[in-house]
């Protein structure tokens, strides 16, 4: 078994290399794009709809509900970005079970690229919401002494995002590869079923964490004050009730 799919190179010209990770991520992208395009080209506002339209509507509704509950904001702002991340990671994790297919998320370069996208999406969404000055002033809160720690936190959580996804998915496929050489009859199937579960959970976790990072970069000063006021109000009501 090749440990790193980046080292399987199909075509090379000067500094341009087409390796297995690229091919498989193009396959996932093509699968998602063609699938969504064929379904939405025959979209129908009637009450009786095709089963594939049902599937897509259920998926989009699910993602919208989850974004709504996790961020407590209007979900349509985040739906394209978070939904794309979730579906791409989900499909590549699940298709990792297909024999001969190496999911692109088993390579650190793919997960690092995804985490870098999240890293740059946080300031983009934050600046769109509250302007350059409002966004940058967040780094000086609560005191300007926290500036280096805020920056380090931003970088380290990006690295953690990449390593978490890569380690979880790659460990699943590595354990299956080891078990195939030790006990090839039944145990690899059980571990693959387990890695299906892990893959779905990790896709969910990646999307939710990206959403949480983006939403925390958007928190304007007024909303924080509102939240603390609400909290103090509930605290006082609780105190009053206990006194009564």
């Amino acid at each position, binding site marked *: 078994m090749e440990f790193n799919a980046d080292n399987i190179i199909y075509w090379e010209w000067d500094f341009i290399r087409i390796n297995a990770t690229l091919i498989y991520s193009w396959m996932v992208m093509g699968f998602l794009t063609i699938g969504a395009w064929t379904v939405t080209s025959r979209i129908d506002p009637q009450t009786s709809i095709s089963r594939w339209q049902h599937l897509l509507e259920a998926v989009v509704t699910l993602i919208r509900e*989850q974004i709504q509950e996790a961020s407590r904001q209007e979900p349509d702002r985040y739906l394209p970005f978070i939904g794309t991340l979730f579906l791409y990671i989900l499909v590549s994790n699940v298709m990792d079970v297909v024999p001969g297919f190496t999911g692109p998320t088993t390579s650190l370069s793919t997960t690092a690229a995804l985490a870098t996208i999240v890293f740059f999406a946080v300031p983009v969404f934050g600046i769109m919401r509250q302007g350059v000055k409002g966004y940058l002033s967040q780094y000086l809160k609560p005191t300007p002494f926290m500036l280096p720690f805020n920056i380090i936190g931003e970088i380290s959580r990006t690295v953690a995002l990449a390593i978490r996804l*890569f*380690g979880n998915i790659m*460990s699943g496929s*590595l354990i299956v590869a080891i078990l195939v050489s030790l006990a090839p009859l039944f145990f690899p199937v059980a571990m693959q079923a387990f890695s299906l579960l892990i893959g779905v959970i990790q896709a969910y*976790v990646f999307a*939710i964490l990206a959403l949480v990072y983006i939403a925390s970069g958007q928190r304007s000063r007024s909303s924080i004050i509102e939240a603390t006021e609400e909290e103090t109000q509930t605290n006082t009501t609780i105190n009053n009730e206990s006194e009564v």
Partner: protein
Amino acid sequence: MDAITTIGMISIIVSGFTIAVGSVGPALGEGKALSQALTAIAQQPDESPTITRTLFVGLAMVESTAIYCFVVALILIFANPFWDYVINMAGG
């Protein structure tokens, strides 16, 4: 014992220790988090979707420390920089 043998032996022993020590802490933490979540669901069954979602995200965060140890163990075994350095020195 030459340098390659020493580096290989120490790498294998330390990678075993890395994954052993690194899996104990997250296992204790995850067990504690799971038991607390079960208690919370038993007390407030209506809140179980929120509790489950927070539990999954939290478990993934806790588990990531074990994953870091796993990645370090893999680097020690499969992509050891010192090993490569010594082999390059011997070859060149």
